[in-house]
């Protein structure tokens, strides 16, 4: 199952992918997730089979793909998910790399770029920021598919929803250290020193 796949930068598969338009070979329908393992593509029903996202090992960056089978896309990774480097050139698209648990003790790599999947991730980000504790990962499921219209075309973005938070499963522990960890610790709030309060009588005493 964990074969080396030279079709994606030499990193180990299987690969979890979103398909907005379906694959040319007909193996994958439009607007679905699928698992690619070698040359085999299998539709993955993320509506009924939630996945776990390894947000602590997540990376973001820019991807340039020639769109040629067998040619690995070029990635430029950000130093941190909190900072996005300037676009290297116009043919680079925003993307990310995140390991996902797909059930049955199996993990896959979701490494993809493009407007649809980036929108999916950024829509989910405010919820991801509510990580209850380090080591807790979100279980998400597909709840909708959003159409995105641009001047030069359109795509479809998956909409994911967090079902619950769980401890990191064993299948994600192995590769967690490979990514750039996010810091889930809540930021300390500045605490001004107490000072005399405004007397209530001082309020509402000016009319206009």
């Amino acid at each position, binding site marked *: 199952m964990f074969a080396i796949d030279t079709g994606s930068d030499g990193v180990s598969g299987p690969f979890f992918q979103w398909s907005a338009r379906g694959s040319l070979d007909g193996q994958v329908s439009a607007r679905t997730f699928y698992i690619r393992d070698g040359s085999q593509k299998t539709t993955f029903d993320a509506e009924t089979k939630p996945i776990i996202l390894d947000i602590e090992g997540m990376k973001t960056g820019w991807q340039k793909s020639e769109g040629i089978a067998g040619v690995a896309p070029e990635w430029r990774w950000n130093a941190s998910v909190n*900072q*996005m480097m300037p676009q290297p050139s116009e043919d680079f698209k925003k993307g990310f790399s995140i390991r996902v648990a797909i059930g049955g003790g199996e993990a896959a790599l979701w490494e993809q770029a493009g407007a649809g999947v980036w929108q999916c991730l950024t829509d989910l*980000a405010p919820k991801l920021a509510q990580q209850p504790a380090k080591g807790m990962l979100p279980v998400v499921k597909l709840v909708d598919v959003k159409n995105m219209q641009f001047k030069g075309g359109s795509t479809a973005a998956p909409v994911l929803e967090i079902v619950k938070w769980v401890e990191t499963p064993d299948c994600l522990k192995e590769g967690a250290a490979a990514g750039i960890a*996010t810091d889930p610790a809540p930021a300390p709030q500045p*605490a*001004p*020193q107490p000072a005399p309060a*405004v007397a209530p009588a001082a309020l509402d005493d000016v009319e206009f």
Partner: protein
Amino acid sequence: MSGFEKHGIDHLSASSINLWANAPDVWVMQYLFKKRTPMGAAAWRGICIEDAVVSTLMGESETDSIKAALEKFDKRFLIADEKTTKERSVIEPTVQLALEELVEFGKPEFPADSEHPQEKISITAKGDGWSIPVIGYLDLVFPQHGTVVDLKTTNRVPSKMSAEHQLQRCIYAAAKGNMAVKFLYVSAKKANWLEDGDVAETLGRAKAQITRLEKFLSVLDKDAAKAVVPVNPNSFYWSGSEELRKEFYGI
């Protein structure tokens, strides 16, 4: 019953009055239907900078305060894009520049025993058969200097205050009597102190807008308000909330 009472509105603020005047469609959605537009990266950057400035003025180390501000920003924008990265990058230099301007004032004072860390002020707008408090929260109060400072972080420091900021300043000035109310505009490269706007004149204009708002509310229930208010999809106020607008108004 006034229009405000009819809709359960018990106070206004400078931002509420400005929103009513500039984008009544957004106002109806926010204040009658309680649907808020999300806070963008620029606004959040301002909050983080202000936190760091206050924290440092109160005695924390500048380094720790900036670190906490960056962590707070990162927590909100977990996955950065170009816009959030740009806003994040100005936090440190803006804090440093703001502190250079404020250090001579010493420690600001804050209210004790308050859930809100800032001093609340309130003045009352009164019209024919209605009255409504107009409230605000002061960023920095320096009683020993007789000065209130409102910190405005921006990517472009203005040479004149906007009408919206003038209203905010005049509300504070009216409430704080003989204290000077100054707005400190700070970017990553520049700072400027401004205190524009004649208080009586500005509050007079605001009262005219509040009077129109009260009348609007008195003659319409919230569904009717939603149905008749002009919707401006090109308004800056909808920026980043386009989907919310389409969902709410269908435009």
